[in-house]
């Protein structure tokens, strides 16, 4: 399988792509925290945050609508928040009698529900932007520089490297299962659910053993090449003047968003 099946990185030349990954990680996390502490219903601040997002979208050469298209992933989870509309606080807007229960949507509940969706939608777009403009290995090094324990970043680096290989392995297993599961159209084939689960479980076990044995081989190979416990990089990752300026600039933007959100 090709790397791009998973990797969300987009090769482009832009200011945003060239920024130090630390700046991008810090800004993304700051942006998400900023969204989280904005009060419900601060539409002006949300709009400002969205404009910032659009601006970065544009600057990164990905096109204004780039993150919008991919931000649909949060939608299924929105279902969970629907019941916030029927908050016990706030003024009732209506009363729906559904027989078993009476639902009373309130104004505060409605504001809260929409605020949750907006926050989530903005945050997920910034996350998409981060991985679209930063190569994943650079991202891992950024976390390493930001003092995330090395064992964790190294495990993640390995996870990333072998994700593609093991997914291929998984696909091969599934193809083999399909090849052996012939059936005539219209006639029910296959066994009970328990039988199916058993087959899948054996596949998981098989995949586990192949991975386990592969990790042994990898370890031997790495030892023979002088592995000392962490993965090194040729990229120096030094913050230059531009990076510091952008970091300061993004801090000012976030503070501005907060001020707009809280002062009215």
């Amino acid at each position: 399988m090709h790397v791009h099946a998973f990797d969300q990185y987009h090769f482009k030349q832009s200011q945003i792509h060239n920024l130090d990954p630390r700046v991008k990680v810090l800004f993304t996390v700051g942006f998400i925290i900023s969204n989280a502490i904005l009060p419900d219903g601060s539409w002006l601040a949300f709009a400002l945050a969205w404009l910032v997002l659009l601006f970065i979208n544009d600057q990164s050469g990905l096109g204004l609508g780039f993150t919008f298209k991919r931000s649909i992933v949060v939608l299924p989870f929105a279902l969970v928040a629907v019941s916030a509309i029927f908050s016990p606080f706030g003024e009732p807007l209506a009363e729906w009698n559904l027989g078993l229960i009476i639902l009373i949507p309130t104004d505060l509940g409605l504001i809260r529900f929409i605020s949750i969706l907006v926050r989530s939608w903005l945050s997920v777009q910034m996350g998409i932007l981060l991985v679209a403009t930063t190569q994943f290995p650079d991202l891992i090094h950024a976390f390493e520089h930001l003092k995330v324990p090395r064992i964790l970043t190294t495990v993640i680096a390995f996870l990333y490297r072998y994700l593609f290989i093991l997914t291929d392995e998984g696909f091969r297993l599934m193809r083999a299962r399909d090849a052996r599961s012939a059936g005539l159209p219209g006639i029910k084939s296959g066994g009970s659910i328990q039988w199916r689960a058993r087959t899948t479980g054996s596949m998981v076990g098989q995949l586990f053993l192949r991975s386990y044995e592969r990790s042994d081989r990898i370890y031997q190979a790495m030892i023979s090449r002088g592995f000392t416990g962490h993965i090194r990089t040729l990229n120096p990752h030094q913050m230059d003047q531009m990076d510091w300026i952008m970091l300061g600039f993004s801090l000012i933007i976030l503070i501005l968003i907060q001020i707009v959100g809280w002062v009215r």
Partner: protein
Amino acid sequence: MLFSPPQLHIPDGFLTILVSLIFWVATIIIVGVAILKTNQSLGERQIPLMGVMAAFIFAAQMLNFPVAGGTSGHFLGGTLAAIVLGPWAGILVMTAVVGVQALLFQDGGLLVMGANIFNMGIITAVIGFGLYRIVIHQKKGARLVTAGIGAWIATMTAALITSLQLWLSGTTRLEIVIPAMLGVHALIGIGESLITVAALTFIAQTRPDLVETRKSAVDGGRGWIIAGVLVTLLAVLISPLASGNPDGLERVAEDLGFLATGFSAPFQILPDYSIPFLGETTISTILAGIVGVIVVLGILILMGRNLYKPKEIEVK
């Protein structure tokens, strides 16, 4: 997508900053201990193994089987990882998996990642391994049955805690989210349980050395039994309380200040349009929450440490 739908992966925006922070603190402490323990026991050799195992969990999550009516059974993997790799390594592996799912696929948020790791990595390891640890010296049948039950309870508890987090954040109503989440995950848990048992059976047949009692017994002491049983009991106690008598829990949360921070941030903490971050109620609630979490965890870790007897591992 290639992997299971994000039922337990909370996106950013759905938890308040207070709830996110509390679970970040808890997760950082537990993952920190897990890092120390794994460093002690296996060191650098463990790193490629855990990395490849994390990739395995990722790949295994896309293996599914048709159940009925277009739905399919999926595999989440926390319990299997904890049983085969040992609980500490299992926690690290799941941490890496949840982290990459959030970073690379936006499957779960960044600010709420602490909560997601807690639910899917730590809870599954504590319950899945804790219960398995009870029967670790028993016959194969007993071990497999316990692993299956553990996988189901772990999935249910993860769903329960996810619901509680959402509710504490004022994102959802308890009487709606608990039956919905637990109902869905009762089914998902059965799939998880069946696959875990079948995978363990397969591994025990092909490579019995990997699931032999010795390895796991070294990685996790008896403290895991206590932690596993306690968390299970707590979950069993809370779920009927939460679904049958939500008012009671709601009252407790209100007294502790959670619901207020969830719902009324803009409307009540800001009476004089002052700077909100210094609001006495918020700060004190955050501090109280963090202190409480640290105290409880400290007690748990001390209990675990006293019961934990380190032994040497012979590396093959």
